[in-house]
């Protein structure tokens, strides 16, 4: 098969361009796209706030149940998770309304570093409870999650986390991804300073938030 001569190719290309030029313009399409993209982009910062907080923390809040289970934790370590703990995101240049969170994160960073020096073990009962949470809230298997006791407060769209028990070991377990809409619906119902359990994955995303019965930091 012979290739076409260059002039023939140019002719085809020219016809293509002319054919394309004759297609009708959709004058309103660009406006619709600008509006749609603008709306979509404006939706994102709300999600980004969550991710910024989550990426900086990399820790989750645990409940009274967690404290109860932690008493049952097997004292002999079976796994060393310390090498998997991700370095916290630097807290410079955070918006002013995140300063409270940033201060708490700064305190937490040292805590996490010290906690991860030890091997951590999860009891069977603790795992079972987490799996129960998974079946209730989560979808995607095998994402890694950290957990630590803390108090969470919701102020507008800000998630303020106060780590109330610096002695609680950072726990790590496998969990599934929480449906974002379900998470937002739950957060909308939160009362000020209500205690909750927050699960964050290694990529810094909030994977689950569940309510708990604890009234304040113990």
């Amino acid at each position, binding site marked *: 098969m012979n*290739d076409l001569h260059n002039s*023939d190719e140019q002719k085809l290309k020219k016809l293509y361009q002319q054919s394309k030029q004759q297609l009708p313009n959709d004058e309103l399409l660009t406006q619709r796209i600008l509006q749609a993209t603008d709306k979509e982009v404006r939706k994102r910062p709300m999600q980004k706030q969550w991710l910024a907080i989550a990426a900086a923390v990399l820790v989750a809040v645990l409940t009274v149940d967690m404290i109860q289970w932690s008493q049952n934790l097997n004292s002999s370590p079976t796994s060393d998770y310390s090498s998997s703990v991700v370095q916290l995101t630097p807290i410079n240049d955070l918006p002013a309304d995140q300063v409270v969170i940033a201060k708490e994160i700064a305190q937490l960073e040292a805590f996490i570093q010290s906690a991860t020096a030890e091997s951590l073990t999860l009891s069977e009962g603790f795992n079972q409870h987490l799996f129960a949470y998974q079946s209730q809230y989560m979808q995607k298997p095998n994402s890694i999650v950290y957990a630590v006791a803390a108090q969470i407060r919701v102020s507008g769209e800000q998630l303020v986390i106060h780590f109330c028990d610096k002695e609680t070991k950072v726990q790590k377990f496998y969990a599934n991804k929480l449906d974002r809409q379900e998470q937002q619906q739950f957060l909308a119902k939160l009362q000020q300073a209500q205690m909750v359990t927050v699960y964050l994955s290694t990529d810094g995303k909030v994977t689950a938030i569940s309510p708990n019965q604890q009234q304040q930091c113990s």
Partner: protein
Amino acid sequence: MITQALKTLLPLASGSKDEMKLFVDTGQAKWLHILVKRHQDELYKFLSHQISCELAADVTQKTWLKVIENKHKYQSQGEFRAWLYQIARNLMIDELRKNKADNTNELSELVSDKLVPSTDELAHQQQIRDFRQAFNQLPIEQREAISLQFEGFSLSEIAQITQYPIETVKTRIRYAKQKLQGLLAEKNDE
């Protein structure tokens, strides 16, 4: 004139990566809007030359929303225009699979609105009409490959956009050109 217009687009296209990077870094819509205004018409016409105008508009809008959704993937993608067309092409293929009906345009409807054309103009319009009919007879794989080449993409870029090996792309373009040439020759003989 078209060639000149294309030439002026090329430096713009090569510079568009910066705006995308700025959009990725800052999340500010203004950077995306620059890209939309720069590429929107060209992308829409590229699509509507292959599928119906209605579907092309739908795919175009979805493409830009996908750009936002996938912005974190852009970093390693390189040139923005090829990345944009890759997204558009994938969405177009998805839509064609969903719709399965023939969504190609009828050129006769598109070029018949000229007022009192001259004999030369009529002949020229007929030539374009013939081209369009021949173009629509190409298999979709050949159509998209040759369209992308006519849009100014290199073979490696077309391979990236269509996710086929370069040799496959080359073959498709060659067959497409030969078939177009053959069909146009038949039209001339009629």
